[in-house]
């Protein structure tokens, strides 16, 4: 492990002994001002601050602008840029290879809510152990500006006319599909994005993060729901969110007053602290989550924050009762039945 700095390490290293540079990727090839780049930067910061070893993460994506972004963070992690709409199945299989690894998947609204809707719903159901980020801009960028399934009804685009269909609400789909962690954020609110990323990474199981990420080239008119201007004007945070690392790691400042805050304990001992802004929103209540999403939809609010969380359900690899050694490190002796078993089998064949 020659790359791990030991004695005499510079002061800007984290507890994993890594600098922030160790979490960076290749230079982005997305448009300047693209919300996706801001999200990549927050992933880098969140992983650095959480002292995650990049080798313990697998990056996944499908196809589209958003799906290119895993090359722009964490070069030391394995990554799989797969097929359009099929990131969930690739991730599901790959994470069986080594159950100690965590997935970070980046998808887009086309990749998830159109071509990938089926796999999206089923990866929720299976509670695969990964952060599932949707960089949601309501538009197809790489093919130069067609409506996606999350585009709002009535949106007008240059070559497409007016969108006649109702949008898919990714968070609502996730909650309905029994996702165990559902959050929404806005790329223009990097602090919230980072805190939610940390909480999502600490969550065991699937953590859906629908991040409204404006497309500066094809869908950034001031009145479009997936634009910076609209997002800033209509963002309705459910709470301020702070992620506190497990107790044995560095404690962040806890400055909130009792009565206003709500703590959500994560399986690994970390805590998400939600500071309620108005009413007492309870993200552990699935019924309440659906109500909040419906209310936001009716009022044209961009409700952001941790919408739903449950830590009660086991992650997919745990349901399979796998051996402690990662499956991909098992040897012939573990995998091939002993020679005498062949006679046992033949005896069963009449």
């Amino acid at each position, binding site marked *: 492990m020659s790359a791990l700095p030991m004695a005499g390490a510079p002061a800007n290293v984290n507890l994993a002994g890594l600098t922030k540079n160790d979490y960076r990727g290749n230079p982005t090839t997305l448009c300047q001002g693209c919300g996706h780049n801001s999200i990549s930067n927050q992933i880098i910061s969140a992983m650095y601050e959480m002292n995650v070893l990049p080798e313990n993460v697998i990056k996944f994506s499908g196809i589209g602008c958003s799906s290119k972004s895993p090359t722009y963070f964490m070069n030391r992690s394995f990554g799989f840029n797969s097929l359009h709409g099929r990131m969930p199945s690739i991730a599901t299989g790959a994470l069986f290879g080594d159950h100690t690894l965590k997935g970070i998947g980046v998808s887009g609204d086309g990749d998830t809510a159109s071509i990938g809707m089926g796999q999206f719903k089923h990866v929720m159901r299976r509670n695969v152990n990964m952060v599932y980020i949707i960089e949601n801009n309501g538009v197809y960028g790489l093919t130069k500006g067609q409506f996606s399934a999350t585009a709002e009804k009535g949106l007008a685009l240059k070559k497409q006319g007016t969108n006649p269909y109702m949008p898919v609400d990714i968070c609502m789909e996730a909650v309905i599909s029994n996702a165990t962690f559902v959050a929404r954020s806005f790329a223009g609110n990097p602090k919230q994005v980072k805190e939610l990323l940390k909480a999502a990474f600490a969550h065991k199981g699937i953590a859906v993060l629908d991040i409204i990420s404006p497309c500066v080239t094809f869908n950034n008119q001031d009145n479009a729901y997936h634009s910076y201007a609209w997002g800033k004007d209509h963002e309705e945070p459910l709470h301020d969110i702070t992620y506190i690392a497990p107790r044995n790691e560095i404690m962040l400042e806890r400055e909130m007053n009792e009565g206003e805050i709500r703590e959500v304990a994560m399986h690994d001992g970390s805590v998400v602290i939600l500071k309620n802004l108005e009413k007492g929103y309870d993200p552990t209540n699935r019924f309440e989550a659906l109500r909040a999403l419906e209310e936001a939809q009716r009022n044209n609010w961009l409700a952001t924050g941790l919408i739903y969380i449950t830590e009660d359900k086991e992650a997919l690899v745990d349901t399979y009762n796998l051996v402690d050694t990662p*499956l991909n490190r098992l040897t012939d002796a573990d995998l091939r039945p002993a020679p005498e078993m062949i006679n046992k089998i033949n005896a069963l064949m009449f």
Partner: protein
Amino acid sequence: MNKVVNDFSITVGTKNGSGSSTANNTILRAIFKMGIPVSGKNLFPSNIQGLPTWYTIRASKDGYLGRREDQDIVIAINPDSFARDLASVAPGGAFFYADDIKQPITRADIAIYPMPVKEIVKKDPNVPSDFRDLVGNMVYVGVLAQLIDIDMEKITAALNFHFKGKQKPIDMNLNAVKAGYEWAKANLEKKDPFFLEHMDKTDGMIMADGNTAAALGSIFGGTQFVAWYPITPATSLAEAMNDYFPMLRPREDGKHTYAVVQAEDELAAIGMTVGAGWSGLRAMTSTSGPGLSLMTEFAGLAYYAEVPIVVWDIQRIGPSTGLPTRTSQADLSFTIGMGHGDSDSIVLLPGDINECFEFGWKAFDVAERFQTPVFVLSDLDMGMNQWMSKPFEYPATPMDRGKVLWEKDLEELKGNWGRYLDKDSDGVTYRTFPGNKHPLSSYFTRGTGHDEYAKYTEDANTFHRNMERLKNKFETAKQYVPKPVTHLTKGSNVAIMAYGSTESAINEARAQLEKEHGIKADFMRVRAVPFSPEVDEFVKKYDQIFVVEMNRDGQLHQLLSLAYPIAVSSLKSVAFGDGMPASAKWIREGILAQYTASSAKLAKPAKKAVAKKLPVKKAAPKKPAAKKTKAAKSGKKGAK
């Protein structure tokens, strides 16, 4: 009347879901235990309950296990198919029927046996009324046993096996068999020529279906991950893996070294398989026709990103939904280069139950050695029907995990590593698995253009170089894939080529061709694509090579013609696809329709020297077929 011993077929016509499979399996197993080579074929509808279904058992003293078109003995239990069943009996045959079916008997050229099935069952007070239809099936077993001499002891053994020693159902069923037997003894006069006599030709043999064999072989191959979606006729393969994993891979801590995931569709099934294969697991899926179509995009990704996976295709007849419960060999053209753009696949072609087991483990060695999708083409006839087989053999070679680098390997290489860097000039590069903790272990996998270090590139030269390397990889694979099986005949003048489950029917046809037409045919059964060098040699040796296969267009014929333009004029297609398993009859007739006597000279002299090097798996059958038949003019199978 001449006795016909151990060489006839029995077909039972019943309703789907009526529970006749216990009865039919009992007959099959009893004959097998009498030492007589036997095969059973289920001709079933795509339906859960109610439609006509047929089960054909063939006893063959010569060991021919292929389908026989003549129906010697027919047992009719289903009023809906009664007329058709009656008409199907070959002249001189026998017809048994449940006598509650009141339909006209229109044949005088066969033996007719009415059976009071319902009455006999009603007499047994131990059979609950709702079990009468099920147990009623055992009555015809008894009647048949009495008339053709099925050994009652072997019937008992078969029921014991079927009910795993549970006395109550064994007794209930055995009593019905005995009642049928006694009734026949007292009331029927033997009017047909068919008899069974003990032989010793099944000693040491097993009976199994190909899907079970494939599942077992895969487990012996160290399978770690299976993702699948239910589809006939592949379902029983994945289900058998679920059944046998706990027994074959037990651990003291009770934990699992494998996972079987039922996916939401075939897209996800192969997607998960590709994910697992990429992360270093021996990963597989099983499917058929429509499922295979759905897997195409991922197959292309796995080819180009170089991910080892194994896909079992239990072929059924298409196109589209086709006939979901009928067999075929029509997926060869589709699988050899599955995916858009230039692509290749390694395709393995098992020909019998034993090879389903063998290729079960071997497919992983091939896939991991060449880091590419391997398709294993079985078919419904092989996969779902019971076949007599040599016992399964323990894998002859240790697991070949291919070129894999772990932490210490990377440390030794000191960074001199690229995921697609061809260090050995064989087209096969080195890979690492997620979870490898070496900081230089990771790479980014993609279906987009990439260079030797897995970095994204649109550079024309790099793209071209990579594609040429992939081509070279498949050249390397030719030496590694299973070699063909060859049967030579002394004085041969023509040859037959085929793949898969048709071997038994082809050997039967070869015996008939030699006996009745003086045509001596060598036979090569191809077992993999790309073709190994032995195939190159073989196709050049004959003026006439008949390529026999169960599809419309002659897909193997097309493939051979493309691969060996020099042999195009000698390659003749004998292809037929109607969903039924190959029979010696249509093979023989198909060959005769294309056979040219004038050019049929002895095989070229060069052949002998080469022939000795070819692996001869089995001797050609010596005994000719029992019945003499006229050469057909049509070349295709006649209507039934």
